């Protein structure tokens, strides 16, 4: 390499590494200022990054962050500093006293993005901490804030409903969400799911209990009448093998393809086999088509109840209810 080429290469290297070295501290200054909840210092540092290293990865970040800060600059960034301090407070230190005090600060903030975002943060904490009426009041204040966006208003409505539900008024929560037309969303679905589970559980228990009691009684009657022959007739090897295969097949498939689902299928399998065994011997004691049809219908209900319980317990239905 000639001396001229080498000096050119060196100059180029200095230019590149020099600008990188200058921008690196500015970026770190900006991040440190953000960690220290000092948005004014962060803004100055990000401006330096954007100016010093135009066209770099960091400059792109600086532009993004400057836009973010500009959108939250009300009150000369003081409200934003409060919010940042609150948000980086460790979860276990965000006690009811700390949250209540911040809620007070929030209501004194000038209107703007920061106030809206602060309400969302503090109301969620108040709800988590069990200050239900205070949480509800903050959510309702959010709903009255003209600067709250559609998503934030939805979050506030969900928050009011969650506060009502946590206070035991589940119906009131659902009614509240349905007040402005067809409701949707995670909170609504979760509340509906809880209600469905609560309402359906006694019916499932009744169907299953009735079937088990009835089939046990009928089975004992069949055994008393026919003795072991009745059991052998009901559980002929071929029928038993078919039942075991039908019940075990899915469990085997699950064990092979999805070990995590094996427990669910094994529970279904064991339950199905027991219900089927009970039904087949009970059937020996029932004469006439109507009686057998009624027992079969009850068996269907019992199997559905079993599946409902097993799938609820495994979480397999949570995405579909």
């Amino acid at each position, binding site marked *: 390499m000639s001396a001229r080429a080498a000096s050119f290469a060196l100059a180029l290297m200095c230019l590149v590494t020099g600008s*990188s070295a200058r921008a*690196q501290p500015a*970026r*770190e200054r900006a*991040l440190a200022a953000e960690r220290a909840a000092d948005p004014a210092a962060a803004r100055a540092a990000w401006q330096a990054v954007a100016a010093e290293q135009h*066209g*770099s*990865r960091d400059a*792109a*970040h600086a532009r*993004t962050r400057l836009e*973010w800060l500009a959108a939250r600059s009300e009150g000369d960034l003081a409200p934003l500093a409060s919010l940042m301090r*609150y*948000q*980086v*407070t*460790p*979860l276990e230190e965000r006690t009811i006293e700390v949250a209540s005090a911040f809620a007070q600060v929030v209501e004194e903030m000038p209107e703007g993005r920061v106030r809206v*975002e602060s309400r969302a*943060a503090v109301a*969620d*904490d108040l709800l988590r901490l069990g200050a239900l009426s205070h949480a509800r009041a903050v959510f309702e204040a959010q709903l009255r804030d003209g600067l709250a*966006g*559609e*998503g*934030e208003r939805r*979050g506030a409505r*969900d928050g009011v409903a969650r506060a009502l539900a946590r206070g035991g008024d589940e119906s009131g929560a659902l009614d509240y969400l349905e007040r402005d037309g067809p409701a949707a*969303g*995670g*909170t609504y*679905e*979760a509340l509906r799911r809880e209600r469905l589970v609560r309402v359906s559980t006694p019916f499932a228990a009744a169907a299953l209990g009735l079937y088990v009691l009835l089939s046990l009684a009928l089975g004992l009657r069949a055994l008393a009448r026919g003795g072991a022959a009745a059991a052998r007739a009901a559980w002929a090897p071929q029928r038993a093998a*078919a*039942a075991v295969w*039908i019940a075990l*097949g*899915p469990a085997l*498939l*699950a064990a*092979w*393809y*999805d*070990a*995590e689902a094996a*427990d669910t*299928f094994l529970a279904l399998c064991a339950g*199905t086999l027991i*219900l*089927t065994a009970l*039904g*087949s011997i009970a059937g020996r004691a029932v004469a006439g088509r109507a009686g057998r049809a009624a027992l*079969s219908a009850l*068996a*269907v209900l019992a*199997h559905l109840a079993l*599946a409902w319980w097993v799938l609820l317990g495994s*979480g397999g239905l*949570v*995405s579909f209810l």
Partner: protein
Amino acid sequence: MVDKHIGRTLAFAAFLVLGCQETGLVEEDAGGPPPADGAAPSDAGAPVEAMHSYTPAGCGYSVTTPPVTEAGASEDVFGPSPSADHIHVSWAGPSHSSFAVNWRSDTGTLASRVLYSTDRAALSAADGSGGAVFEQLGHHMLFRDLARRTTRVHEAHVCGLSPSTEYFYRLGGPGHWSAVFSTATAPSPGASDAFTFAVTGDSRGNEEQAWAISQRRVRDALADFELFSGDAVILGTAQDQWDDFWSADDGAGFDVQQLLSSTPLMMVNGNHDALAVNFVAQTAFAQDTFMNERAQGEEWYSFDYGNAHFVMLDDNDRELWGTSEAMWLEQDLSAAEANPAVEWIFVTHHRPFYTCMSTHSPDTSLRAAWQEIFDRHHVDVVFTGHNHVYERSRPIRGLSGGQGVIAAEGLNGAPVITGGTASGTVYLVAAGVGAPLYEVSTSCATTYSARAERTYVTVRVNGRELQVTVRNAMTDSMVDQFGWTKG
């Protein structure tokens, strides 16, 4: 009789449940190269399948499409509304010198070009390459989903770029260019430049608009890229759900494309994604096919960013995870550990093998297949999803009777560092940016902290220092924070 019907119904339900998790993707013929461009011969009545394989100019690696209805090189053909949407970037090549971009158009548009430059003004004015503006040709694919809806997507790979540089780009073709987007390349391999990445997962269902809100948070947290731990959608073969995934908005003027068009999204396959053709055709990751790996080699892959190595695994096929995938994992981590430029190793997959009393139990067979490999190569953090909660394990190293052995623990549950090596691996479950939240417990010995909250994670790597911050996606309040320095 009735019982027999019930048994059959249960068996059918099991078939449906399992069948729903099948790929919907035609298995690649491992015995030979993919067919050349255009449609492959097919039986009468069967859907026509095509694959397209090529080496993008300057990239040094080849790209093969999954079998789809149509696939081919870019042609300057435009449909009635050729504008690009669902624009998102990723890496299929080196992160410091390339990027890949995927987008959707109307079904009639075949133009799959990218114009790119470091000069935004020059790019805005350009209708083709020249001066500071360069051009790359990509490919297009047409596929049908479960509902027989056709979707045209495009993919292009841009290579030969400079490290740590912002590039502006436009998509489409002459006379039909998109707006200007930008993305940035990674620092040079091994550089100790600080960087931040985000981790999210289980957006399926997009409850409470949590997916879009989390993406706004990721943008505001200045993440250089994002890892996604699977389950983008409820049903991988339903394109309408993927459409929502790529275009979700938060109801306050932000849509996910604002982030994903600039911040690479590196995804793993979740059980709901099912490695469906929709997933594979709309994403671009490294295609280093290993043995019987599916999805043209995108089923599992790794990449480097600065001084860190990232491994992205598929844990949905038990026939593969303990065999070929484990072999690949061993090779990949051996190479990473031997690479002096790599100081950190992170793994992402979907199903956790350390999780406490949540909906899904810990996957112990997966633990048996992979943990020893993670231990041997000193993986720092493993990110998973599947349980829609936040959970952090204590540092774990070794197995005893199939159970994880808790390693030496430092401040705030972080591993102890000895000779630059962490005492154990931290296993994180961070999922639920849209899926229904589950319950979780801290009662297990291996669990350090757990919360039933929708969270997003940001990880700051600054040379040999690591800081992990977990925030509630809905409120942006801190949920957990920990980190350590490797001496």
